[in-house]
């Protein structure tokens, strides 16, 4: 690492964390966003490139980050959307046969700023108790030096992720096709992860289309099923997508993941709540209510579906055993189901991968 640039992270509640700057230098010296934490012990590259983190600063609770470098195969999207990363310790040297470049070089190349040397456990405990908070960080010395005051102001001005359409920032501009399977799937891209596209493409020809694509255009592609992807932020901010899904329901089998799950719930007039600090990690136990089996899942969401609000039309199929949050539902009247967690893992366990096969079966039977 080059010379150490002292840096600070300031939260909207006024808490200050000392650290050192790393990665790209942010514009005007300040990176701001909603600060969340992720407890996965590996998979930092996948997290940094996951579009669902748009608008957010990710704190890694595992202290050593960057140990195995980065490999282009592990990117979860065409770029990075996170506003920055907060870590305890950046590996000075990485080691792994798959690695192509260091995490620091990767961050600089993608314009992502970070702060290291932070007592990330203190920060995590604070976020756990106070909920996700807006925050801002930046170097306190050097060309782009900022001040604690400026960071405090930036944290206060940061809108967070409520009421913002972050999907528009991350969705694909134009449709593209992946895979050559017999089944045809149209995937609505709210910020789709590469691993999901790859899972679908393993049995289907997948058209990934912009989030705002209307139902008629989707149906015109003559798909066997529609997939609603993961994505960042507040699902109520994509009313156009909710309307699209409402229209599609009953016409075609639907499978949703994460934000897609929430959009499906809103399409059947369900309601959404914001969790205090969300679920971000790769170790969440989810029980499949149909089989009784427990899956260890990868999770990344701040909003959740209110189970009672959908009970008129849907069965709750998956429950988070840590806090009882709804993790999945299946509509009773039409062929559509969704999960809050990430069966594509990346990073995380493969326990829920069977859900893609279920989607395949649903398309085969047409519901």
């Amino acid at each position, binding site marked *: 690492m080059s010379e150490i640039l002292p840096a600070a992270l300031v939260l909207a509640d006024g808490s200050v*964390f*000392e650290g050192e700057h790393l990665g790209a230098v942010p514009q005007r010296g300040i990176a701001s966003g909603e600060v969340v*934490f992720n*407890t*996965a*012990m*590996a*998979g930092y*590259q*996948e997290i940094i490139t996951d579009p669902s983190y748009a608008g957010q600063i990710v704190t890694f*609770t*595992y*202290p*050593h980050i960057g*140990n*195995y470098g980065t*490999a282009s*195969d*592990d990117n979860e999207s065409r770029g990075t959307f996170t506003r920055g990363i907060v870590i*305890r*310790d950046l*590996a*000075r*040297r*990485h*080691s*792994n*046969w*798959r690695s192509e470049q260091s995490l620091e070089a990767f961050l600089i190349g993608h314009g992502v700023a970070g702060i290291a040397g932070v*007592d*990330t*456990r*203190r920060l*995590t*405990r604070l976020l*756990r108790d106070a909920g996700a908070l807006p925050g801002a960080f930046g170097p306190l010395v050097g060309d782009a030096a900022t001040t604690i005051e400026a960071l405090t102001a930036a944290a206060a001005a940061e809108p967070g992720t409520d009421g913002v359409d972050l999907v528009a920032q991350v969705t694909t501009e134009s449709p593209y096709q992946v895979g050559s399977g017999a089944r045809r799937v149209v995937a609505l891209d709210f910020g789709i992860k590469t691993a999901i596209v790859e899972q679908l493409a393993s049995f289907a020809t997948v058209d990934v289309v912009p989030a705002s694509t209307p139902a008629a255009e989707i149906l015109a592609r003559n798909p066997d099923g529609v997939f609603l992807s993961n994505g960042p932020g507040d699902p109520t901010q994509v009313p156009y997508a909710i309307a699209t899904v409402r229209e599609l329901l009953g016409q075609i089998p639907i499978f949703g993941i994460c934000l897609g799950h929430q959009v499906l719930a809103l399409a059947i007039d369900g309601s959404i709540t914001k969790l205090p600090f969300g679920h971000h*990690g*790769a*170790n*969440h*136990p989810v*029980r499949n209510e149909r089989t*009784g*089996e*427990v899956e*260890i899942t990868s999770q990344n969401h701040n909003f959740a579906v209110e189970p009672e609000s959908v009970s008129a039309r849907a069965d709750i199929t998956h429950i988070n*055993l*840590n*806090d009882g949050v709804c993790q999945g539902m299946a509509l009773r009247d039409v062929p559509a189901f969704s999960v809050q967690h990430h069966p594509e*893992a*990346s*990073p*995380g*366990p*493969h326990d829920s991968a069977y859900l893609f096969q279920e989607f395949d079966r649903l398309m085969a039977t047409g519901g």
Partner: protein
Amino acid sequence: MGRRTDIETILLIGSGPIVIGQACEFDYSGTQACRALREEGYRVVLANSNPATIMTDPDFADATYVEPLTVEVLTAIIEAERPDALLPTLGGQTALNLAMDLVEAGVLDRYSVELIGADAEAISTAEDRQKFKEAMIEIGLEVPRSGVAHTMDEAMAIIGDIGLPVVIRPAYILGGRGTGIASTPEEFEHVAANGLAASPISEILIEESIAGWKEFELEVMRDRADNQVIICSIENLDPMGVHTGDSITVAPIQTLSDVEYQVLRDAAFACLRRVGVETGGSNVQFAVNPDDGRVVIIEMNPRVSRSSALASKATGFPIAKIAAKLAVGYTLDEIPNDITKKTPSSFEPVIDYVVTKIPRWAFEKFPGTDGVLGTSMQSVGEVMAIGRTFPESVQKACRSLEAGHTGLNASAAEARFLAMDDAELAAAVAVGTPDRLFQLAESLRRGVTIEDLHHQSKVDPWFLDQLSIVVEHRQWLEAQPTVASLSRADWRRTKQLGFSDAQVAYLLSESGDDVRAARLGHGVQATFKTVDTCAAEFEANTPYHYSTYEDESEVRPGTKPRIMILGSGPNRIGQGIEFDYCCVHASFALRDAGFETVMVNCNPETVSTDYDTSDRLYFEPITEEDVLNIIEVEKPIGVIVSLGGQTPLKLADRLPAELVLGTAPSSIDAAEDRDQWAAVCDRVGVPQPPGATAIGASEALAVAEQIGYPALVRPSYVLGGRAMEIVYDDVELKRAMTALGQDGSLGREGGLSAERPVLIDRFLEGAIEVDVDAVRDHTGAIAIGGVMEHVEEAGIHSGDSACVLPPPTLAPAVVDELMAITGRLAAELDVVGPINVQFAVQRGEVFVIEANPRASRTVPFVSKATGRPMAKVAARLMAGASLDDLRAEGLLGPDPHPPHWSVKEAVLPFNRFPAADALLGPEMRSTGEVMGVDLTPGLAFLKSQQAAGGALPGPDEGAVFWSLADRDKEEGIEAARVFAELGYRFVATAGTAEALTAAGLTVDIAVPKLGEGGRDAVALLSDGEVTIVVNTPRGRGARADGDYIRTAAAQQGTPLLTTVAAAKAAAMGLTESATSPLQVRSLQQLHQEMA
């Protein structure tokens, strides 16, 4: 699914004595299992021959059998207790093997006992190398190319296919005994032959060598609904080639991406499913080729293992407890996570710190061994340390070892590495040894590049770079003019990299006190974080802490007066599970008495480091700095230093005197300091063997001149007779003194000094040694725990000697005198708490050898034998109670007069160290102990022998080999006469044969000396003609015939009696057992009989 209601009584088998490869981790697992099963309302029957364990406390099971772990004995227990189920997965390889033996003998079928946890088919699939390999190939996992051989011919055919180098592993063995690597045909022949001999079924696996690959382990749990979770991932710093038990290991995995990790995770689950582990914890090991990521599965243990203990302590997830609950039918999601209380156990712990385990070895105790690590485990214990980063964690682990290091070098202990030249160092790091970590750091200090060092050592570059960060900071510190020039930021970085104040003091040539003051002057204090299974995602209810240097500390204020208990650190020979037993008992007793207990320890195998043993747990090195940091935040009303062996005792002087509970540090010194101790004995009026202290060889010779030979030479402030010797002349004395100096084996522990002189005493030949354990309260009242007569005569370390309670041959008047002297010494030293006094009784005359105002190794044995909870009582006395108070409470009953006899026997690790002489002496070398209880001393002794090494073979099975030192011949013949009456045939060395014949006994074969041609003793042993060896040696000379005979016996597992006293006791037992059938009795029964 809930708990099963179709079973009521569950039999649990413990792992027996502590041996290399199987240590107190199985006390941790067994104790957790007993508690968990009783919590669920099951009746628990426990069998374990090891009295030093906490699990064999009568409180932990409904019926506790401290009996030999043999099929015969277990059958008797099953017949008496009629259990519905047998849980074999929590008692190590011993329990697993016994369970298989019981299945094969048809015992479980006969008594309708169900195996729960893992069935016979699963155990055999996991344990049988060939079956395992086939099973893994069947599910698409890669394994190293290999073949199985039962003979040398088969073995040669296999390497024709595979080529060299190869690894050879015998089937059905624990800890890798008999395993080795062969790179040349000559090596191959040698290692393969050893392996075939070591395997109980003469089977070895020969496989492609993957030495140098990266090694990983996953700890997996599975429930009967097929839910599986990974509790912990572990990466070995030492590459493949060093047994994982001998490797430095780190949790979690550091150098694998999630993509690669998930491949291992899926493979581990597939492995458990295929093997058929129904429920419980298993450990799966993988090797990964660092160049291309090729993964091969190495092995799996279908049971709780040493790694499970580490994983439990590393994550806070109680694997053994959960395994027990899964075995009786619960599923993971039905069991709450103890730490968060709110979330279920069906999750994968995440951690936000780094855990480092470093093994501890005892090569210095086994002259002749080369100290090279390989695929056979040799370590006797381990430490674990928690830091926020690897540098902090590894430095804490280094200072936890108590091997002279105060961190990763930057301490006086590095002198050895500084003295090596570059070429030596480069050669050294290529070989796994206890020193390699420190040699890597020294290489980095000299500027060896990470590429070169990786090439030499195969240690992953990430680890090397992390070590380099520590080394570079050390160099920066060295360049600072004074400690005063360090800023707050400098201090923070220094401490975050894990440097101890002692290292800074060493580097800057300042005093430790000045360094501490300078640091605290900048407000840089330890902060304490919590081990919570979830990286702070949920609030933790369990105060399980580790220190680091961060912004925030999480210690909550207490509500009750707190007492801190300092544990005993890593297991080593001389300081093991017995002291953990004492610390745990203290914690239980003090909790019951309304105190909050604060445990400090760094040994992951133990019950003391279970998060629910004490009110608060600090997983920390037991050093002055670390302990003072905890005292600062916990503000205890007192600290107990006398129950954890020498580790905490050594700190007594450095802690605030008013906090040290019980006997004052000045009395502890008085018992250790030669002159003060002599004065104490004079005042009390008890004779000591004549002796004096010496620092150098010339002083020693002068002392010897005065007192005469033989003389006993021993350093002060050591435990387990470290470096103790009996010398018979000037030459031996000079050699012993050299060995104790700076360059010798004690050098790394600081060598000799005026503060630490050598004690030289006249050795009392032919004396009977006796141990007395007692406790004394602040009013001066005393209670005797037990008087133990040693089977071996004085001169054999008490820890290696068998002993009998009550004393079988001492006259009642002598016993009374010993108890009275114990009382007077305790009063003179103003002991409050435990005291152990060692006596030698020579022809009825009593000498005091030493007194230790601390808990002794025999405390658990005494407690089991008499039912008197000595450690609990001692802890309460130290916290202010009187014996009368405890009698009123019922904690202390009337003086016990057991109607039975209890024998404690030591278990020695000579089979692990083929190059070392299997001879007992004043330096302790046993790793563990067993207990035999019966109605006569002979039967109890026989049981203790069975428990320690299997039953003594009968007269039809082979001959007794006799080789007696001249001084032993007269008494030896008496013993031989009894063996002859029982029908045993004799083989003897020429001189002994002559003596036996002269006494009218028949000797079938008088064997020639080794090398004189004809079939010598070693050949008779390997051919199985000799099945019992009686060989009494004298002194420690050059390797003589006796050494080879004893070594061969130790390797073959042939019962070896090295004293006449033991031979007599065995003869007595064999005679009695011929007429009295085997009887088993639970401790509960025994203790009731006494009441």
